[in-house]
């Protein structure tokens, strides 16, 4: 019949031996080695990659040789002192430390944020200054965490200052421990 020349035949007629062989050739490729290799490379890149690129946290420190009168201009009422000690202990007091240590309070890294924000709300912006005093047993993480709190609470003025002996005594009394070795 002439029909099978012009139109494709749904009846699956034989078109010839050569054509049939070509159509039936299997195009499937075994991809297993390719997958193996792919995952090997993925594993390699996962292990060598540093996903969280380190960030830079800016810190400016005051010049110690600055004139004495330029320092300590903070009003005592606006001061908020945070003391850092071992085992992530945090202590704080507002304003000046009372001679009997009555306004010396202990806290931790979770609660100190609330205290700082409370102080911030109650103090005129220009008077507010947060003083961070790490003692000998505080670790670097504590200091950076505290500086970070300053960023979080959006505190404009803060300083890292050396701790006073009186404050160390109070910390030791609160922690209930003997002074650190060397009596520093």
């Amino acid at each position, binding site marked *: 019949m002439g029909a099978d020349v012009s139109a494709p035949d749904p009846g699956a007629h034989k078109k010839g031996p050569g054509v049939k062989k070509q159509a039936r050739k299997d195009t*499937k490729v075994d*991809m*297993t080695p*390719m*997958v193996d290799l*792919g*995952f090997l*490379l*993925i594993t390699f*890149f*996962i292990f*060598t*990659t*540093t*996903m*969280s*690129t*380190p*960030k*830079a*946290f*800016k*810190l*400016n*420190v*005051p*010049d*110690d040789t600055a004139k004495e009168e330029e320092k300590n201009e903070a009003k005592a009422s606006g001061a908020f002192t945070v003391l*850092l000690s071992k085992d992530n202990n945090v202590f704080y007091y507002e304003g000046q430390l009372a001679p009997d240590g009555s306004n010396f309070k202990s806290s931790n890294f979770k609660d100190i*944020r609330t205290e700082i*924000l409370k102080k*911030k709300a109650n103090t005129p912006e220009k008077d507010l200054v947060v003083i961070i005093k*790490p*003692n*000998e*047993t*505080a*670790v*670097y*993480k*504590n*200091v*950076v*965490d505290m*500086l*970070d709190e300053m*960023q*979080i*609470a*959006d505190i404009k003025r803060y300083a890292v200052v*050396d701790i006073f002996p009186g404050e160390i005594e109070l910390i030791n009394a609160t922690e209930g421990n003997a002074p650190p070795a060397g009596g520093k």
Partner: protein
Amino acid sequence: MSKLNKIAKKSTWVDMTAFVDLSFLILTFFMLATKFKPPEVIKIENPNSVSSENQPEKDVLKVSFDKDGKVFISFSPDKEGKEKAQLTAEVLSRQKGLGLTPAEISTFIKFSVGGIGVPVTQLKSFLALNDTEYKSFPQPGIPVSDTLNNQLNDYLNALLTGTGGRKPENVMLNGDNATKYPYFKNVLAAFKKNGIFSFKLITSLEGVPTGTPLYKKQREASK
């Protein structure tokens, strides 16, 4: 009988094309996102901060201190960093009478990318090490604990004398979580003594806690 045959003949072929597609997609992602870890002689776990500024890479002077308080100094491997490392070595050699040869100075530059943490007096013997020995050499760290013998000060002084007071653009402090505060204080003291008051602390990113002033500020800024 015929039923059993049917089961046995079932093909175990799985079409892996989708699998390959996915695996190469992931592979591409990792290849593009990856940034190789720099070779580190010291292991340091950085604290977290909310700062989202990326760590600069050009003209870096990095001072690292690990959890035992060992202090290391390193320079970035770019042109400015190498130049500063060279100047430091030259001036230090002159000031302390170490008598470093040009070969030792170029070793200093090479080691300074990974970190140098030896007292000034041991510098010459330290620079005689080869690359493999360097990696396994237990560096004692630059002594800083004693205020009179704060040798980081010597290194920094040599650097600033060499550059004629020109400070590195980026002074990075790379501290470990567990470093005791006095070491950090002494490192700062050495910098202050040399008139460097501005630092960048290397930290890992953490999210800004919701509801805090910084969070509100950032939301307002993005509106």
